[in-house]
């Protein structure tokens, strides 16, 4: 009997190839985190906006960003915004995915540089 792959394994296989995968429910709703039976897989453009942000200040170590990013396809994920100081990350900022190995992070881009021109 063939077993279904775990959603996390499918997601990670895409991530290792630099593809930000998500699922699409039968009603067209984008789904993230990956879930069993949630829908068909699709690949995001990797463009989105910062929805919420915080700056973590460890007792021993440099401050770093933790943000939630809304992707243009309509799903939200946790990530880190890179390329700017953590305190400089702004809600609403336009961002583009880039990869640190198989971990997706996001870099701010100017709204005018956005090739999709999406809001």
């Amino acid at each position: 009997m063939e077993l279904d792959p775990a959603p996390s394994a499918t997601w990670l296989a895409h991530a290792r190839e630099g593809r930000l995968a998500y699922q699409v429910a039968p009603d067209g709703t984008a789904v993230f985190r990956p879930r069993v039976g949630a829908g068909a897989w699709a690949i995001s453009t990797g463009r989105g906006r910062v929805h919420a942000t915080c700056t973590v200040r460890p007792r021993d170590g440099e401050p770093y960003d933790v943000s939630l990013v809304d992707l243009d396809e309509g799903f939200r994920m946790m990530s880190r915004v890179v390329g700017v100081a953590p305190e400089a990350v702004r809600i609403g900022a336009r961002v583009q995915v880039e990869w640190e190995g198989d971990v997706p992070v996001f870099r701010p881009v100017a709204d005018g540089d956005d090739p999709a021109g999406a809001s």
Partner: protein
Amino acid sequence: MSLRAQVAIAGAALSDMGAVPEGTTPAGLAAQAARRALGQCGLGVQDVDGLFAASTQLPWASVTLAEELGIRPRVSDSTQVGGSSPIAHLNHARALIAAGQIEVALIAYGSTQRLVGRAAASVQEVDPYEAPYRPPLPIAAYALAASRHMHEYGTTPEQLAAVAVSARAWARAWEGTPAAWSTTPLEIADVLAAPRVCDPLGVRDCCLVTDGGGAIVVVARERARELLGPAVPEVLVLGIGEALSHRHVSSMPSLTTTAAVESGARAYAEAGLTAADVQVAQLYDAFTITPIVFLEDLGFCPKGEGGPFVASGAIAPGGALPVNTTGGGLSFQHPGMNGLPLLVEGVRQVREVGRDVSLVHGNGGAWSSQCTVLLGSGATA
């Protein structure tokens, strides 16, 4: 079948609080509180036939506690929904009492998180979609929501600080017990100047890390009358609502509106009451942002106006709506999951302070689980 006013809380007590002696166990603190609560209504541990407990330190909480107490309950429930657990337990317990399955429910909690350290006391599940970004949980979930609330509604650090200042004022004013952990004066400027932990939250925006626990005894209303006699004011359960919306903050449907909207609506509907009827509220305050959001979601002010509401002094001593009247998790005690200490105070407000309608709201996880209970005096039956 309506369960409104069918059950009563016959006993409610805290365990020792603060920093407990070496060797103290979570189940031991729960048992200590349990014996105190049972003693208030003339019962002993052998009278308990329904046992309810949850703890991040005890995966088998009700089983471990049964052993500690030396009892063999016919029903037990270790439902773990974080800081809202004891209100969920209360909801389950009253249904079992009404159905005749149990007669005496004990809901108890204990934590030694200060003694053993937070890392050992509250092990976080590793989530593959969040862990790579190293969010310090739970605070990151609350800082992210605070950032969004500030963005959408203009909520300010000063308004967040007002929650901590109000809590400290209650801790200083409270005469119920000398157990408040933080009683030095606290001003807005002190909160703003405190070291940042996870912007926009600083250390004074965060709850305390203490040991402690509590217990309540739940029985049918008539049984409570028999046990306590006519001289002791009744504490009736008028309505309860439970609601779940997500587990991880990255899957939270809205960062500024929680499932407390649903839990509150369910509790109010059952009780036949509205926010305007509530005379005192205990609102889970793990961080300063949480009571602000719950004031909105439970109908005490419009969405987005929680910041100005708390900054007006409305929730502080002398304000229109007393909130967290012990000093709450921010200044009284916060033993890991703070639901039971909030419930004990909600009961005290009816039984000893003489309030007719007392609301207690518990929050669990990353705004994940929301449970609301409305407690009432005999006059509300």
